[in-house]
């Protein structure tokens, strides 16, 4: 098991270096950072001096190596636009994003699994049809549109929920902030979380439904029924448990995408998370922030993949043998 983890960690480092290099190549095509750092009247001579100071005139391989060397020491430098250390800026935004991702995941699980089970068990009922129609909406409407629709309905028309921001936050420890303990914070997270969760919920519901239908046709379910077990036991003890393996994989992997793709939701709701910071950085060609963010997301995916593999082993005994054997 330990060998497996170590092997995966080495592979992860390879992935991170690759992401770092690809990111670096991309940055060369998004414009000149100096243009965003100074006003339009700043003479060219000063711009040249600034480019020199930032090391933007060095050959590309030198810049790439310097970038990777600094990244290895977790030194991402100072943001061009905000003149603050990148690690602090991202650190300050991280709780907002993780909290949103966490609440959205819980929402999508809590709503998605029962809906999936229900639509599988009562395929012909009107409610199941409604759920499926809803899931189509969730999968086909783009996130920003859902967000804006929610804002116009609940913030502008009804005035129940705030349209932007995170509300009041409470500091826990030295750097974590949470909005889950204040009334305005809780109100603020509802719409962004729903927007972010809708797609995931749809995905989980459809996955659970498909898996459940598959499992319900399996022989051991028929035997269970033949043994005279109650329907409830058959459905939830035997069928649901076996559908959960692929669901765990997908939910785990989706957690990474929830964090990564919260960019759009965060922009629509001006949610002060990492995604919004990333988008501001793209507009301002703030290379240090972009680089650090991309590496962070890559790291997150790598970790999540690892954890999912391990969880898999815990849920499915057959895989444990395979891992040990390999």
């Amino acid at each position, binding site marked *: 098991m330990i060998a497996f983890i170590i092997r995966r960690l080495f592979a992860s480092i390879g992935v991170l270096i690759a992401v770092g290099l690809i990111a670096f190549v991309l940055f060369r095509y*998004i*414009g*000149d950072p*100096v*243009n*965003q*750092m*100074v*006003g*339009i*009247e*700043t*003479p*060219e*001579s*000063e*711009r040249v001096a*600034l480019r020199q*100071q*930032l090391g933007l005139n060095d050959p590309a391989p030198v810049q790439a190596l310097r970038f990777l060397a600094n990244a290895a020491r977790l030194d991402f430098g*100072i*943001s*061009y*636009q*905000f*003149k*603050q*250390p990148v690690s*602090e*800026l991202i650190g*300050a*935004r991280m709780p907002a994003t993780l909290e949103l991702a966490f609440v959205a995941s819980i929402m999508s699980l809590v709503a998605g699994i029962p809906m999936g089970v229900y639509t599988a068990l009562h395929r012909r009922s009107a409610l199941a049809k409604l759920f499926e129609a809803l899931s189509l909406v969730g999968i086909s409407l783009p996130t920003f549109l859902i967000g*804006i629709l929610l*804002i*116009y309905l609940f*913030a*502008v028309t009804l*005035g129940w929920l*705030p*349209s*932007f*921001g995170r509300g*009041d936050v*409470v*500091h*826990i420890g030295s750097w974590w902030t949470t909005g889950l*303990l*204040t009334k305005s914070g809780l109100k603020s997270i509802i719409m962004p979380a729903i927007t972010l969760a809708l797609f995931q919920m749809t995905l989980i519901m459809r996955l659970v439904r498909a898996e459940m239908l598959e499992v319900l046709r399996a022989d051991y379910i028929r035997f269970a029924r033949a043994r005279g077990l109650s329907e409830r036991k058959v459905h939830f003890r035997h069928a649901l448990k076996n559908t959960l393996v692929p669901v765990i994989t997908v939910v785990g992997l989706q957690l990474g995408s929830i964090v990564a793709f919260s960019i759009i939701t965060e*922009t*629509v*709701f*001006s949610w*002060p998370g990492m995604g*919004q*910071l990333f*988008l*501001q950085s793209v*507009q*301002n*060609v703030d290379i240090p922030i972009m680089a650090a963010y991309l590496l962070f997301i890559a790291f997150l995916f790598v970790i999540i993949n690892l954890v999912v593999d391990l969880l898999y082993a815990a849920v499915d005994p057959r895989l444990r043998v395979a891992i040990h054997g390999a």
Partner: protein
Amino acid sequence: MQIELTKKARMLALATLGAAAMITGPFLATDANAKTLRFAFQGELKAADPYAINESFSLSVNGSVYEGLIRRGQDMKIEPCLATSWETLDPLHWRFHLRKGVKFHEGQDFTADDVVFSADRVHSAGSDIKNRVPLDAKVVKVDDYTVDFILKTPNPLLLNEWETWGIFSKKWSEEHGATEATAMNATTPPYAALHANGTGPFMLVSHEPGVKTVWKKNPNWWDKPKHNIDEVVFTPIPSNATRVAALLSGEIDWMDPVPLPDQARVNANPGTEVLAGPEIRTIFLGFDQIRPELGHSNVKGKNPFKDVRVRKAFYQAIDEEAIKTKVMRGLATPTALLIAPSLYSESKDFKRIPFDPEASKKLLAEAGYPEGFEVQMNCPNDRYVNDEAICQAVVGMLARIGVKIDLLSEPKSKFFARITAAGGYDSSFYLLGWTPSTLESYNVFQYIIGCRDEKGNGGGNNVGGYCNPKVDQLAKEALQEPDQEKRDDIFKQAWQLSLFDDVAYIPLHQQALAWGVSKKTHVVQRPDNYYIFAWVNMD
């Protein structure tokens, strides 16, 4: 047993969190009578240090904290601020008398040392507003409340941009290692990027970059406040739809800008309205007139834009009235000059060269292009109001005289990297906007119309490289002329020569400002689009 334990653990965790909430709770509560102005803008405040970037949003917002020796009133007129009066002993020698009894927010006294220090700081390596004080000027303390500026060349416009040259406390800056403006290659975060200590009507409480900035009223301000607010909370809201929604739902009191398609909605809502007014930025089209052959055209071996007839043909082919009504929905003021009417007294004497496609075709034929030609046009798509739509309209209008435009619209980060000196002025035909930061004509002649070399020395933002030494000579004469009326007369000749005889540029319009405000919030809109908290009153 196991279940009980987890239950207990959960209760414990909840209790801890609850306690944390109770401890921090009271600090979040605010005085019920306190008036808070909630302000939103599409961009973010980059740094609390006003020297860090020469950008109007940062300059205007930081201007509530840091004051200059002068300031501008609601009519844009220069009025005394930290200097109570000044005189020119001779054209090279200015004397400023400073206001007595002014204190910085953290209690330091304001004296001549702070002015001398701020003049050094504004020239430090990281400063982006070095041009506020001429580099070769000497700043001399005469006594604690008198400062002399000794210049190398006469400059009647010395104070024009001093509203945004905020004075720093020497003592405070030295204590906190902030004697240099926020340097770009700093390895430690600069103190002044997050903290501020000025003399102005508002004090910085907190600045979370890109998230939220809070100021509170300075109770010890030297001047009598014209506002009644206690606190200002600024949030950047980049998404247009969300910013409009937040205003409509009453979560913010003031925001900028209201996108054109949403203006009717904001006005229809009972609690909100759009405050529109002419801005001083001029939008115009420019041509490459410096290269022997255009970089992006099917005309080879020569540059058609070197021929004034071609430039005039383009000018007369553009129906600015249509751009105003169709593209800008009426929210633009067509202009014949590259300066707003409010900034130049004789602008009413100029009329646009009339729209006349037939004359255009004739001019093109005379110049040897009866069938027209092809050329690429560069256009930003996220910089000015409806910039891309204006360019598309221009493409259609020029098609009518046979000119085929290949339109390249890009985000500002790419657009400016391409067309400015850094990109080698790589454009044949382009759209640009310009606000003269000194609020008078000379600035336009200096940056936009003045001759430049290939590296950008001279008129650094003269992308097309138009050059007429006579115009440059007139502009220089004007700069030396202390009398305002005589100066304006010299500029009149220079405008006539450059924009009408030479058709150096095609001026289009001054775009309109569009602020969204709640009807309970009374703000003052200045044409330079500055957000001045000290003039805000709330019911």
